[in-house]
């Protein structure tokens, strides 16, 4: 089963870069939904014997990260009438180059770390690169909805790392899914704020009134 798992991990890296490089919000959401589906398949692919707990984890991951959160992001776009184009603070080329640098760092760091016995060597570097690219999106994109996408990627990276401990402490990966609550709160927040008409545009950039 391992070759399939490695293929899925590489596809996750691909979705990371897809979010970095696209200019349309809807493509970013499609990429993050795909990442959620891939993530959900991993608990089943990485472990030889299936137990009910892993199946429940996989199904709930697919439902939450693959369907529910992307759907609510689309709902937020409709409801809050967000403009569809993405205006990053740094250009796409620079983003992709930074992403490539993150990839190099992730693989070299993971090479140095004393790895516990894992089904595949790719798990730790892919987790690290997803965390880093998620942070990159969170920091460099001005639009609140894209920051949520960045946060989702950050979470997904942490979830991947949690999978290294899934066999010993399955409780841990399940706890990781709780982070999705924050993403849900952000999306709710964006819509509610917009309905309140506090902002003409929900660019987090404009939230700059409080300062010293």
């Amino acid at each position, binding site marked *: 089963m391992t070759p399939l798992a490695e293929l899925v991990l590489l596809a996750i890296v691909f979705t990371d870069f897809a979010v970095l490089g696209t200019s349309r919000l809807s493509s970013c959401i499609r990429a993050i939904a795909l990442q959620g589906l891939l993530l959900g398949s991993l608990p089943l692919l990485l472990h030889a014997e299936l137990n009910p707990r892993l199946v429940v984890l996989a199904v709930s991951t697919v439902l939450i990260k693959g369907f529910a959160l992307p759907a609510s992001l689309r709902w937020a776009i409709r409801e809050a009438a967000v403009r569809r184009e993405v205006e990053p603070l740094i250009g796409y080329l620079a983003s992709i180059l930074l992403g490539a640098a993150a990839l190099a760092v992730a693989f070299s760091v993971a090479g140095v*770390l*004393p790895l*516990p016995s894992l089904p595949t060597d790719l798990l730790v570097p892919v987790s690290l690169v997803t*965390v880093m690219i998620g*942070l990159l999106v*969170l920091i460099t994109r001005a639009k*609140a909805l894209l*920051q949520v996408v960045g*946060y989702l990627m*950050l*979470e997904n990276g*942490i979830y991947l*790392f*949690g999978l*290294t*401990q899934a066999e*010993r*402490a399955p*409780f*841990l990966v399940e*706890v*990781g899914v*709780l*982070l999705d*609550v*924050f993403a849900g*709160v*952000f999306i709710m*927040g964006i819509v509610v*704020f917009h309905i*309140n008409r*506090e*902002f003409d545009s929900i660019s*987090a950039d404009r*939230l*700059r*009134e*409080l300062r*010293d």
Partner: protein
Amino acid sequence: MLLLTLVLAPVVAAALAYVIAARLRAVLLLGTAALHTALVSLLWIAPGDRALGGWLAEDPLGRIILTLVSVLFLAIAHYAIGYRREEDPRGGRAFVSCLLGFLGAASLVVLSHHFALMWIGMETMTLVVSPLIFHHDDRRSLEAVWKYLMLSSVGIAFALLGVFLLATAQPHGVAGGRPLVFDDLMANAAALDPVWLRAAFVFLLIGFGTKMGLAPLHSWKPDTYGEAPSLVGGLMAGALTSCAFLGLARVSAICFAAGADDFVRPALIAFGLASLVIAAAFIIGQGDIKRLLAYSSVEHMGLLVIGLGVGGVGAYGSVLHALNNGLAKGLMFLAVGNVVLVTGTSVADRIRGLHQRLPISGTLLIVGLFALTGSPPFGLFISEFTILRGILGASHPWIGAIVIALLAIIFVGLAAMILEMVYGNREAAAGRSEHGEERKWLVVAPLALAAIVLLLGVYIPRPLSMALAAAAATLGGAAP
């Protein structure tokens, strides 16, 4: 059973707050707070309780912080009842419910001896506090909540990664003990993988440091404390940050036991010094009393991690300081809350002559000023002095000198603003606004907190000093 009740009773009460009649909510809030404090005092009589197979456990360090949370919450619950008569915050139901939920989550953080469980408590605490910050339906509150949620959620995500890394550092099988259980981690600290442990410490320091508001991760603090209702500010500065400190202290204890001192201690001291520097820089010339208190909170969090970092008697001072600082912050925020209720502003230039308009709250501000700046005879004098002894004992004379200089600057900054507010000429206030006078109900809670802070400066009860010594021993320190 007792430990589970401490966590679950506030949660049940939080749910009840949604269904019962409005006039009963005050009774529910105060009743739950009083019950919680009564149960916590039972812990002092019969210590060492555990539940859920050791996932929830009570130790001297946790007992001290839980007592702080419980007493502070009781004072704030009492204050909240009077406050809601003056100015009803958004959604009375949600307000009471979130306050009670906070108490339950904070108890879970303190009593958890399992890091994943502690993390769940920390996340819940972050979530239930956000509606409390969003007090006014305006742009400034919105910005404060958004910043708070963004920074804390990234912080909490890093903390989770840190928890995963900590699990990775634990060897499989009998050699490592049960995964992520604090007592097992301490007992088998020598078996932990040093590289993964250091990685775990870095992420947990960033995660818990964001919750504590250590510089440079403090940027949510002035905005949040500035916009939230004062009593929520008091709860966050006194209880939430102390719970985060407890989490950091537990991780540090494991690192010390594993012999990672050379890495962990300098990191803690560096974050602490950065916090003191930032606090001193922004306290001078600050124009808003609530933001001033936020930077004072950054300062005290810095002192806590410095004490933890130098070890020895510094660790003892640090735990005592967490207790003192939490109570003093509660006192100060509640007194400021009274001022804001009457003057309608927290901008210092518009507030003058409080000794005439609000004689008791004005006096409390002065008391709080001397307490917060570590003057005798208040408890913070003893704890700051013990931390300084710890710094010198670890032979860091330069760090000691820098800390003393920064504390002096901070004293001048705080005193300049507060003395002017209390004794300044009333006519000189810019854009004066008057509505109402001091409410008797609202001075009770800050007076009680002031009395405790004063008492702790004069006399530390024997059970407390024994618990402090035991907590310091866990943190690799010693009693003076």
